[in-house]
């Protein structure tokens, strides 16, 4: 009985079509050989992919997003590892509050974070700088990193650590030689999820980026607000393929379903 009937399968097919339709549309339009938005049926080409090279603004923005995601994901992971060890390994007064604080950016609308960072950074004199944007990104990607590292810390039996400590290893040695290698998949998964989240972030970043520090999604947003052309479709197609490649990496490192469904 635990089989899907024809009605269920039709529903499922339509649902999958709905999910894939806009992504397929983006990919198809990007291969047109016309100067305007159209399907590639009457002539396909790579001209709009070649055209990206004539827009240094987008290429600079891509590198900007890449550096930003690398730096902020690394910083967030560096902060998340000790925090996850504290929350996962100790029962201490204020533990629930600590967890709530680290997860709170998930509850705050990105627009509210954006305007708050805008005001704060201009007050302390780092408005529109790379440092400012990177710090803002650390805050918003921290919950994702923490959840994945925490999941691997709580799932870890303490036997090996206890044995090492009994045999005279100092806490730092226990961490570096025993704990760290064991939670490495969680750390790598958390870093990669943070990287992707930072790379894609647009709503908060739009407030804190200056023209010199504009990230790729922000530049794409401003472009789309003006005009929708095959150029933006070809850039989006490259992004889709890049994300799929990262998803495969994430799947190998940690298991994509575990990352997405959020179970440790």
């Amino acid at each position: 009985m635990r089989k899907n009937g024809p009605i269920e399968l039709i529903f499922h097919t339509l649902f999958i079509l709905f999910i894939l339709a806009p992504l397929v549309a983006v990919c198809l339009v990007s291969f047109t050989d016309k100067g305007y938005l159209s399907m590639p049926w009457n002539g396909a080409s790579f001209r709009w992919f070649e055209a990206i090279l004539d827009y240094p603004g987008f290429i600079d923005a891509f590198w900007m997003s890449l550096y930003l995601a690398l730096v902020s994901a690394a910083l967030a992971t560096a902060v998340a590892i000790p925090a996850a060890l504290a929350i996962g390994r100790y029962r201490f007064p204020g533990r629930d509050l600590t967890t709530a604080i680290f997860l709170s950016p998930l509850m705050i609308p990105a627009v509210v974070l954006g305007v708050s960072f805008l005001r704060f950074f201009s007050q302390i004199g780092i408005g529109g700088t790379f440092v400012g944007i990177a710090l803002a990104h650390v805050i918003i990607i921290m919950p994702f990193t923490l959840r994945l590292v925490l999941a691997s810390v709580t799932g870890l039996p303490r036997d090996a650590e206890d044995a090492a400590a009994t045999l005279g290893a100092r806490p730092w040695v226990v961490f570096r030689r025993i704990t760290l290698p064991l939670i490495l998949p969680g750390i790598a998964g958390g870093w990669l999820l943070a990287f992707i989240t930072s790379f894609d972030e647009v709503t908060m970043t739009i407030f804190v980026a200056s023209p010199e520090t504009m990230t790729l999604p922000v530049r794409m947003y401003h472009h789309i607000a003006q005009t929708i052309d095959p150029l933006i479709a070809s850039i989006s197609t490259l992004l889709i393929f890049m994300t799929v490649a990262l998803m495969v990496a994430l799947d190998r490192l940690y298991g994509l379903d575990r990352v997405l469904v959020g179970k440790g």
Partner: protein
Amino acid sequence: MATAAKLRPYLLSGPGLILFATLLGAPLLLTLMLSFYSFDFTAGIQPGFTIANYVEVLSDSYFHLIFGRTFGIALLVTLFCVLLGVPEAYILSRMANPWKSIFLIVILGPLLISVIVRTLGWALLIGSKGIISETLQALGLVEGPVSLMFTTAGMVLALVHVLIPFMVIAVWASLQKIDPQVEDAALTLGASKATVLRRIVLPQIMPGILSGSLIVFALTASAFATPSIIGGRRLKVVATTTYDEYLNTLNWPLGAAIAILLLVANVIIIMSYNRFIERRYAKVFE
């Protein structure tokens, strides 16, 4: 040694907490203060204490319209995500591997693709020169181009697509906890398929549906990129209005008041929802 061990969790979480206090606490506090400042188009932002910004937002019918539209759209998107996402999660859970894993990744994977790209896809599909319009015209079903751009329907459509993975995740997670033998037992005892769904499956996945709805509602209410691209200037929502106050009108205090109201509404909805779910479904979470 005992005190050192007691201090260790604080030392470990300390750097993060300091970071969050300075980089999250201080900025939010500044925005709260800013929302009580006044604004003058010639003199700019004037420090002080006035509730004029809140009075303006809460009494002006223009802002009522925007807040009403935002929460109306959030309700519609949540409703459609329940109607489409819940059956899909159930169908998915009854599939055999490898199809189950493949389709789960197809449905959840788009979460990792930039929301700009996904919204662009809908703009390409529903615009007047879009694929849907061209196809309908080619089939002779409509005269002239049809467009859902700059309409509420288009915005809801794109937002459902952007947010439905969250609903599938939530329901999927609660479906995993169901013991399939209970369903089989009910069937053996003569219950119809519909009865099994209504009496056995639905009550058990209700917490998942509710928490999925909460996530979808909160994220729709504060969505920016999709409403901005699909709705444009004509259909403003709270997030795009805040953006305009900050970066076009430059009336930061008023923008700050709108942002604080959005934050407060968000937190109240999440908190009361959590309380409701905990009270009602405390047993399920055990």
